[in-house]
C-alpha cells in the first residue's frame, strides 16, 4: 500500500495495465510528452514508448473514432478527453458507434475501450470546465459509467474498466484529484496523504464495477451519491446530526440496485445528490427507481439535491455547487416529511 493522490493512482493504474498487456495504449490531447494537463498520464510515454502513449490532434471525434477502430482491431485504447465539457464532439462516436458495435454486429466486432474525462466543479472552471454529463451516458444502452471518489477506487475501478470487454466511460471528479473535498470552500484543503482512502494497493488491485460502497452506515435516511459529492455528503451528515447512511455508488451503470434497495428499505428515507443539473440528471433515475422499488417503505418523498438548471457559472461557484449547507437542509427536510 502507498499513499497517493488520485492523479498518482490513475497514473499507477495505467502503468499497471500497460505493463501487463501490450495492447493497452493511451492517447489524448497533451497526454504524451507532457503527461496530460492534470498529469494523469505523466511518465507513460517515457516508460512505454511513443507508440503506446501519444499526443493527439485536438479532435475529440478523432480520439474516440480512431479508438473505436483500434478497439475493433484488438487493442485496448484508454483515451483521455481533456475535460468532460469537451466530450461533445466525440459524443456521436461514443453513442452511435462504441456503444452499439457489439450489438449491431452480433458480437463480431467489439469495442473494449475506456474514455476517461475529468468532471465536476469546485475549481472555478465556469461552464466549460465544470460539467458533469454522466446522465448523457447512462441513457445510452451499451455504455458502462463509472465515477470514483478516492484514489483507491480510482485505481481499482480504472483497472476494472480496462479489463472490461465493452466501452466504459470513466468520469474523474477533478476536484478530488489532489485531496478529498467536503464543499467547505472557506476551509483549508486536505491532501490525500491525510486520508485513509489515499492508501492505494500496489499492483493489480481491482475494484469491481457495479458494486456500491457504504461509506457510512446509518439508520434514519439513505443518501445516494458519487464522486466529489460523497465527501460533501459525509460532511453534511455529520453537521446535520442525523444518522444517515451514505452510499457511494461508484458505478452508475450497471447500478448496484440491491445495495440501494436494502438501505432505503431499512431507513425509509432517501436523498439523492449530484453536481449535474437537476432536470434529467442521474438523480431522476435514482429517484424513479427508489420510489418504484421501495415505495412501501418510504416515509417521505425521495429528495434530490443537484446543480441548478443553469449553466455552471464562474463567480457564483459556491452558489451553484451543491455544498454541505444545501445537503444538510435536504436531510432536515426529508426527516421532517
Amino acid at each position: 500500500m502507498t499513499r497517493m493522490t488520485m492523479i498518482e493512482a490513475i497514473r499507477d493504474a495505467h502503468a499497471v495495465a500497460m505493463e501487463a498487456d501490450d495492447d493497452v495504449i493511451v492517447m489524448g490531447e497533451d497526454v504524451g510528452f507532457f503527461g496530460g494537463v492534470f498529469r494523469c498520464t505523466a511518465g507513460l510515454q517515457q516508460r512505454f514508448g511513443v507508440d503506446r502513449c501519444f499526443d493527439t490532434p485536438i479532435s475529440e471525434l478523432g480520439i474516440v473514432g480512431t479508438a473505436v477502430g483500434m478497439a475493433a482491431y484488438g487493442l485496448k485504447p484508454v483515451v483521455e478527453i481533456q475535460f468532460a465539457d469537451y466530450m461533445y464532439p466525440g459524443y456521436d462516436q461514443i453513442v452511435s458507434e462504441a456503444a452499439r458495435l457489439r450489438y449491431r454486429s452480433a458480437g463480431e466486432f467489439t469495442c473494449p475501450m475506456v474514455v476517461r474525462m475529468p468532471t465536476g466543479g469546485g475549481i472555478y472552471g465556469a461552464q466549460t470546465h465544470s460539467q458533469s454529463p454522466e446522465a448523457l451516458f447512462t441513457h445510452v444502452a451499451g455504455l458502462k459509467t463509472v465515477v470514483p471518489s478516492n484514489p483507491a477506487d480510482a485505481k481499482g475501478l480504472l483497472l476494472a474498466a480496462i479489463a472490461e470487454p465493452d466501452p466504459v466511460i470513466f468520469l474523474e471528479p477533478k476536484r478530488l484529484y489532489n485531496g478529498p473535498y467536503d464543499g467547505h470552500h472557506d476551509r483549508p484543503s486536505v491532501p490525500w496523504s491525510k486520508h485513509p482512502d489515499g492508501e492505494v494497493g500496489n499492483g493489480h488491485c481491482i475494484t469491481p464495477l457495479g458494486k456500491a460502497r457504504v461509506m457510512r452506515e446509518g439508520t434514519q435516511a439513505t443518501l445516494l451519491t458519487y464522486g466529489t459529492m460523497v465527501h460533501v455528503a459525509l460532511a453534511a451528515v455529520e453537521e446535520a446530526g442525523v444518522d444517515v447512511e451514505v452510499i457511494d455508488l461508484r458505478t452508475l451503470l450497471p447500478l448496484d440496485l440491491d445495495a440501494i434497495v436494502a438501505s432505503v428499505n431499512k431507513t425509509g428515507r432517501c436523498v439523492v445528490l449530484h453536481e449535474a443539473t437537476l432536470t434529467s440528471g442521474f438523480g431522476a433515475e435514482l429517484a424513479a427507481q427508489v420510489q418504484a422499488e421501495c415505495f412501501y417503505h418510504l416515509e417521505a418523498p425521495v429528495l434530490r439535491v443537484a446543480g441548478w438548471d443553469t449553466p455552471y457559472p464562474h463567480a457564483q461557484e459556491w452558489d451553484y455547487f451543491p455544498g454541505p449547507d444545501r445537503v444538510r437542509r435536504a436531510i432536515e427536510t426529508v426527516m421532517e416529511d
Partner: protein
Amino acid sequence: MPEERAPHLNVPAPGIRPGGEPDFTHVSIPAAGEVDRPAPDTPPEEMRDLAFTIIRVLNRKGEAVGPWAPEVAPEMLLQGLRDMVKLRTYDARMMTAQRQGKTSFYMQHLGEEAISCAFQRALRKGDMNFPTYRQAGLLIAAGYPLVNMMNQVYSNDADPVRGRQLPVFYSSKQHGFFSISGNLATQYPQAVGWAMAAAIKREKKLAAAWIGDGSTAESDFHGALVFASTYKPPVILNIVNNQWAISTFQGIARGGAGTFAARGHGFGIPALRVDGNDYLAVYAAAQWATERARADLGPTIIEFVTYRTGGHSTSDDPSAYRPKEEGLAWPLGDPILRLKAHLIALGVWSEDRHTQAEAEIKAEVVAAQKEAEAIGTLHTGRRPSPRDMFEDVFAEMPPHLVRQRHEVGY
C-alpha cells in the same frame, strides 16, 4: 480594388431538373490511358495533378490502355465480370423482394458495381474494409455467401446480426467487412484507427475506408484525414462520388472545391481521381494505394467518379429531383458493359457466353433466395427471438437487462 457590393448567398444547383435535357458536357473526361502513373513512393506534392483528372484504362473500343492498365490474367477479369453481374442480379431480386413486402428496405448499387467488386481484389486476407451501405461488392468479391446476405436483408432467424440491423447493414469480420453504421461517415476515423492499430502492432494489414460524396461534409471525414495525415497509418480513404446524396447533387458538398480528391492536398495525402465505372482503372488504383500502404508509405485518397443510376434507396424516387434519363447520359458508361466489351475484345468472352453466365448467376441467386426464404423473411417464417434483442448490448447481460428480458417473458 474590386468594387463593393452587397453579398449574396451562393446556393449551388444542378443545371438540369426533371423535365430538362440531361447534360454532362461540364464533366471533363480525359481519354483512357492519358494520365501518368507515378511510382507509389513519389512525394505527394509532385503528383497533385492526379486529383484533378480521371484515371481511365478502358477506352471506347474496349481496349485496356495506358500506364494504369494493370497486368491481370483474363480469368481474374472474367471473375470480376461475374461478381458484378451477381451483384446486379442480387440487387434486382432484393429490390423486388422489398416491393413484395419481404423486407422493409433495400439499397442497390446500379451503375456502381465496378468499384467495390474490383477494389476487393487488391486486398488480402486480414485487410479490413470500413464500408458504407453501397459496397456489397466487397463481400461478393470476397466470396461471402449470398444466402447470408439475404438472411441479413430478411432479418430472419439465420441473419448473422440477429435481426438487429436495417437491411444491407452486413458485417463479416472474416471477409474483411466491418459492421455498417447507419450514421454516415463514422466509419472513416474508425478505419484510420484500425490502421493505426496495425501500425502500433507492426502488423502487415491495411484498412480501406469508404464514404459517399455527400458524406465528405461530415465531421468524421475531417477527423479521419487529420489523424491519417499525422500518424500516416496504412489506410486507403475511398470517396465514392456518385453525383448524388439522396436528392442533393454533389455540388452542395463540393462547393468551390475542384474535386473531392483535392481535399486530401491540404493534408499532404496523395489523392487519385479514378473512373469508377472502369473495372480495370478501379483495380489499378486500388493496387497502387495498397502498394503504398504495404510499403509503409501511409494513406492514400481515391475519389471514384461514378453515377448512382438507381434511387437512393427503396424509399426514394429520383424522378422528383433529376431527369429520368440522366443516368443514360452519364458519360462514363456502364461498368458491366465496359468490362464485357473488353473481354470480348480480348477474345475470351462472347455475347452468348455472357447470356449463359447471366442465366447461371440468376439461377444461383434464385437458389440462395429460396434457401433464405425457406428460413424466413421479415414478417414470415423463422425470425430472431425477442430474446436476441437483449443479447450483445454488453458481453455479459447486466441485472437491469435480465429484468427487462424477463418482463418480455424470455
